[in-house]
């Protein structure tokens, strides 16, 4: 159906609608103009809104982050694109010392209503340094929001909310699923909340917590397990920071078991915090230890071997069985 959209098209639509609604919304980044972004997330927006609102910047990520902070402090709502998350590290100083702190260090006199978008994660046979998923680095920083959509519908609604947000949002787009699924987008302008996880599937035996592209493998795993008579409750965290533990805890309280799946390296990853919180809060209610299925503690392998790194359906199913048979 022609009005169904992929995730990257949903991003494009959200940007389009936000720009139409509010002239303070401006876009900047590398190759986002005539080229429409290397993944076409900003396709046609320059011709529609002009080069004052869709700005191709020089090749300088530190600058992009810094000027976005400056624009935001002036009351614009800039949405910057970092071409790949592998190049977000040059933004860290601006993100940590300025974007995340502007409101706090001026006690609200200035603020930083910006969005920094970046495609992230592996799985598309990309060149070296193009497959990072280091959301944990950003999640640790007070003052930031870190948001990750996992479907076209959620991409639209979450991005609209991210742009509305009076505070800085890092919006990470799982490029592995940029084009794997088409959905009819919700009503124009509808938002999704930035403070709640989404329960994608209800279940009673075990809670499966994940986000981004891994939602796909988790859904597959749920199907397999359903055939085997295992009822899985699937939660898409969506907003990693600040973390909505209520939903995760409520579900785990109900099922007594939890498995967390992410693509990033396991150690010191986002899964560690979620696991620790569940253990801390539900220690006496858990039927089995929480399990993490994650990337190994190695650099994401260059693409010939990347599929062996990314948690797959098989590893998830095994982990859930392990969790169910314990103790």
């Amino acid at each position: 159906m022609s009005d169904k959209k992929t995730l990257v098209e949903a991003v494009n639509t959200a940007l389009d609608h936000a720009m139409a609604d509010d002239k303070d919304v401006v876009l900047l980044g590398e190759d986002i103009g005539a080229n429409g972004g290397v993944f076409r997330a900003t396709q046609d927006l320059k011709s529609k809104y002009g080069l004052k609102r869709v700005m191709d910047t020089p090749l300088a990520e530190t600058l992009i982050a810094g000027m976005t902070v400056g624009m935001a402090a002036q009351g614009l709502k800039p949405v910057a694109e970092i071409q790949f998350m592998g190049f977000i590290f040059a933004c860290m100083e601006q993100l940590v010392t300025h974007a995340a702190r502007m409101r706090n260090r001026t006690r609200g006199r200035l603020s930083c209503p910006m969005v920094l978008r970046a495609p992230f994660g592996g799985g598309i046979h990309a060149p070296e340094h193009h497959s990072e998923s280091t959301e944990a680095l950003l999640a640790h920083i007070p003052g930031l929001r870190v948001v990750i959509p996992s479907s076209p519908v959620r991409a639209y609604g979450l991005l609209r909310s991210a742009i509305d947000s009076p505070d800085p949002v890092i919006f990470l787009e799982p490029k592995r699923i940029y084009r794997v699924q088409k959905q009819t987008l919700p009503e124009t302008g509808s938002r999704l909340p930035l403070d709640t996880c989404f329960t994608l599937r209800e279940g009673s035996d075990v809670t499966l917590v994940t986000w981004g592209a891994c939602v796909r493998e988790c859904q597959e795993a749920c199907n397999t397990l359903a055939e085997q008579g295992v009822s899985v409750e699937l939660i898409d965290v969506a907003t990693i920071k600040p973390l909505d533990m209520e939903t995760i805890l409520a579900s785990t309280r109900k099922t007594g078991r939890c498995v967390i799946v992410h693509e990033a390296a396991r150690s010191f990853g986002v899964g560690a915090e979620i696991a620790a919180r569940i253990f801390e809060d539900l220690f006496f209610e858990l039927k089995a230890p929480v399990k993490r299925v994650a990337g190994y503690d190695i650099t994401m392998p260059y693409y010939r071997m990347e599929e062996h790194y990314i948690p797959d359906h098989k590893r998830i199913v095994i982990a859930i069985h392990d969790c169910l048979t314990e103790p």
Partner: protein
Amino acid sequence: MPTTLDGGGLFRVHESDIPFVCYLDANGQPTQPLPGWAEEGSLLVDYYKAMVKAREADRKAIAMQRTGVMGTYPSCLGQEAPGVVYGKQLKKEDVLVPYYRDLPGQLLRGVELSDIYLYWGGDERGSAGPGYGQDFPNCVPIATQAGHAVGVASAFRIRDEHRVALTTCGDGATSKGDFLEALNLAGVWQLPVVFLVVNNQWAISVPRPIQCGAPTLAQKGAGAGLPCVQVDGNDVIALHEVIGSAIERARQGKGSVVIEAITYRLGDHTTADDATRYRDSEEVRKAWSEEPVKRLQTYLHNRGLWSPEQEQAYLEQVKLEIQQAVEIYQKTPLPQVDDLFDYHYKDLPAGLRRQKEEMQGGLGHE
């Protein structure tokens, strides 16, 4: 073996044709005919008064640090001139994106001295006062403010506003990529932003020649296609000419300029520093003979525009004002726990609310 084009001078260092602007020499004597406004004199007296006030406020801050009433403080002693000039030449609707040695300019922008003290007293609320308007707070991570300034200037351009962003930084800051990336953008986008490099010859212990191999710092603008100029940073007349025109030029949509103001850091880097470890007292002695306040005072005296009696009366008034600021600062109660939590997000997330309650419990004020 390649022909040695080198011998033929292919690899000469780019000729520097950077202008250097100066009107008053170190003894307060004009080196060339002064512009009309300077002949008239009243603005010069304003500049003078602003420098004197800044210097007194600075002295007080150091004294407070010495007596344990304030933390580490970076003195602006000797480099008051650029600040008083941009402080007067910027319009209220313009935006200042300062570094951390901008007390003289900030006072003229309308920032309360008590807020400046509060800031260096370790309290974020010192960056919150209404006196700042839309100006940025002090920036400690070197050169990162340059990115903000071009962002602000971009916002002006996007909204077709005739406003200007002016950003300051030190000589050391010109080595950091942030500064250079911002120049480059200002050059391509012809942004209404003025870059004012306050070259006080030292970046903590690193002297200017060890910071950069080029003869001027101004010429860093060359690679960005920006006009660049050096100015005597202890000469308010020259500074007025250069900074004032740069601001006007930017306001008229003619783009950005890089200004290097040559001055000297007469004091230690901060109160935590001991400059005698790394620099010659002879150099400092010489710098004292070129400092901006005495220079302008001599000129004003010579021209009969300022008398010892006026000086006396003004100093008393200034000291009183400073004392009032000190009192406000010292009477400012500690921030509440709310202050620490409530400004991370516009609305406090649930998880933070619980942590805030926990901290309040710990501090015994539920």
